[in-house]
């Protein structure tokens, strides 16, 4: 009986295990997941082996499992295809990244003062656009840390992106010509038009509130309750706002009922806590969604103590009470802030979380 495995399949299988040569070339290549998996997965240790004296990565260098996922099968295939087919040198061999890489124009221009004068106008404009020192390089508002990490890690990418953008602009301007037979611009087809059809039915805050209002997975019912709440906010008299506990942002109080979602957003965002406490009492900023979640939860908890017959009415009355600064939720928020502020002392003690 002849052997069932052929040589062809065997070589193909071997090709799969070959280390990808483009690993150092592109960020979004097929090589990346393999590399990151090496770091991310549980490390196989042997008891008799010597201990690993590896310096742990600083938080900024670490990769999270969700940060760089495996590319989609199509992406992987297209990347492979591009490497193998498209990027060929003149002799028909697949090019290697080392051959492709040259020194960027910026680097040359840094050295060459004469070239700086004669560089294309587009590049000059780009340089003029951001004079140094006009804006802070850091932000004072709290943002999600995920974004911070992305920007820190990719300073080089930004300059490269700027360059690529400029080049693309120049090329487009140079190459642009009307298609044959057209006097004016190509009319936009409906399929190409960026419509507003892809949009959410509800405001993101309303959506979050509705889902937290949901009991036993009955979303439609929660939506109905939400509409009752919004109608209550719309029809109840404008809130007498306590000056000690003002609502943040939004129009003045008499205008609030006419835009109930805005009203609700103001209530929730005013309650949102900036610092969250953990067991070790190290305050850290919450993201917008987390902040809102905490606020909604407090309001829903407080509404349970009310005596109105309907859930929607209980919540709606509690919301109005919050808007007017009567609710006990405010005390809870103040308490939380106190904890957060006293916990600031601990900030230097512990390393940054995550």
């Amino acid at each position, binding site marked *: 009986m002849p052997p069932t495995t052929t040589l062809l399949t065997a070589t193909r299988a071997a090709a799969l295990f070959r280390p990808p040569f483009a690993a150092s070339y592109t960020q979004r290549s097929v090589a990346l997941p393999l590399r990151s998996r090496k770091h991310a997965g549980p490390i196989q240790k042997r008891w008799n082996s010597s201990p690993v004296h590896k310096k742990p990565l600083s938080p900024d260098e670490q990769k999270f499992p969700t940060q760089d996922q495996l590319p989609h099968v199509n992406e992987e295939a297209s990347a492979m295809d591009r490497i193998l087919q498209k990027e060929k040198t003149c002799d028909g061999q697949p090019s290697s990244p080392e051959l492709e890489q040259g020194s960027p124009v910026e680097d040359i221009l840094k050295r060459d003062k004469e070239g700086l004068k004669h560089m294309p106008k587009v590049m000059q404009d780009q340089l003029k656009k951001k004079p140094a020192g006009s804006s802070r390089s850091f932000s004072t508002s709290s943002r999600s840390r995920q974004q911070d990490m992305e920007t820190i890690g990719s300073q080089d990418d930004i300059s490269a992106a700027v360059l690529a953008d400029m080049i693309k602009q120049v090329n487009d301007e140079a190459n642009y010509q009307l298609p044959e037979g057209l006097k004016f611009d190509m009319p936009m087809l409906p399929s190409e038009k960026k419509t507003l059809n892809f949009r959410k039915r509800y405001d993101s805050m309303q959506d979050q509130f509705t889902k937290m209002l949901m009991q036993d997975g009955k979303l439609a019912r929660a939506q109905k309750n939400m509409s009752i709440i919004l109608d209550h906010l719309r029809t109840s008299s404008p809130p007498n706002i306590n000056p000690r506990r003002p609502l943040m942002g939004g129009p003045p109080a008499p205008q609030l009922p006419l835009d109930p979602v805005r009203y609700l957003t103001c209530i929730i965002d005013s309650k949102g806590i*900036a*610092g969250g406490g953990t067991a070790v009492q190290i305050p850290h900023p919450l993201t917008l969604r987390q902040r809102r979640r905490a606020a909604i939860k407090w309001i829903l908890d407080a509404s349970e103590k009310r005596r109105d017959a309907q859930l929607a009415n209980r919540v709606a009355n509690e919301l109005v009470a919050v808007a007017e600064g009567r609710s006990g939720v405010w005390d809870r928020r103040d308490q939380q802030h106190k904890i957060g502020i006293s916990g600031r002392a601990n900030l230097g003690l512990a390393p940054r979380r995550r």
Partner: protein
Amino acid sequence: MASSWCWSCLSRLRVTPTPRAILPPQSITPRVASASFHSSAVQYANPTKKKGALVTQKYRQGQTLRRKKKKTTERARPPAVGERKALRKRIVLSNPNALEVEGMQDLSAETMVDSRLRGSVLGLPLPMLDQLRAVQAFKPKQGWSIFRRPGTVLRRDTLEMGRLFEKISGEGSAPEKGKVVKKILTGLKGSGKTVHLLQAMAMGFLKKWVVISVPDARELVSGETSYTPLEGTSPLQYVQPNAVSALLTRTVEANRAVLSSLRVSQTHKALPGLKPSSTLEDLAKLGFQDVAIAWPAFQALWTELTATAAAPGMEKDFVPRPPMVVTVDGLAHWMKESAYRASDYSPIHAHDLVFVKHFLSLLQNGQASLKNGGMVLYATSTSNNPAIYTFEVALEQLAARQAGISPSSPDYPSPEAYSGADERVLELFKPTTGKEPQFELQTLGGLTRDEARGYMEYFARSGLLREEVNETWVGEKWSLSGGGIIGELEKLGRHVRSTAQPVPVSV
């Protein structure tokens, strides 16, 4: 091959400072004098004994962690009886937060026939709101509560109805004066059937007609009110005195001005307490003061309202009677057997209830009954609606007759064989004979784009809609609402798409 020992077990075998896990605790096995396995000193502290009871491991006791369940908040007392229902049935007609729409006109005898105003929203006159409330023309969940004051769209059907009202009232000497128009309103869910009835009632009040309304047909057949057999009828018929009394109350409340200006002109043997000089309001009051004579009082009131001349000897104060508007909402409930039972426990057909029968008979002999003319509007409903096959067929037949198909034609719809069609329903919907005008089927569709635009502008000008109302936007909403179905348009109009921006919070 992997070992059957897991590494944690193996690691425990190593010499550790505290080999407590392997050695049995002292409390169970007494210390033996013999040398231990290990050469090292045994280092474990004596387990602290609890005073009192010996801690023993019980069998058949769960080892899992038990947490206390979160206690549900005990509210002091449940809401009072009827509070929930009152909340559900509450009708709010005004929202003080909404903006007053500038230049909004009231519904009046002039505006209701003005075709230039088509597509605009006309406010219901404020003094009339009490009357409309009395006849229960407003229903909860119709969305009146978000506007400053209630208003309705002047659509094509409304204008046509307005003209009919004008003709029947007979300003000048119109040939239609004193005619009776009988219509059955159908249409998709949310197409405005009930509001059309409301507009009819409002026009009736404007024209000083007498408005008689059955706001929910279901209540008469669902077994909620009392019923008694009516003596001397064959086959036996049943009267619902409390329902009749309630109808009289509503009618008097809403039509007080008209009824108090009319005096009794006939002799009523069933009502010996009635004086010849009393008004029709007094007559109706007799009915709801004494439930036992509610039905005779209603019959007497009907005779008075439809009289064309006074009985001999009572001509002194006779005033010509005004036309009448009769509306019923939810007609399908009257086309089946009711929830009431006869003495032999057989179900009573709705047509055997004398009160129901009275209204239904107006379809066949409306002109004969309403001699002063008027309008009979019966609407079907699509919410809480029974599916009645025979009724559907009857409506199809009606539509076919209106389309000009002869009943003898093979295209004329008829109930399927062995479908158990209700003969009484088919009988009711037969074409009328003699001088009696035919009753019509009116199907309400959607608004036109222009009307929809006027309606959406009303939302925007009330401050409820924060969008730019232009042709494109209205066209989109018109399509989304199934071709201008007004109930769907209302949902789209009140759907808030706020431009709320998240408020940045600094730490």
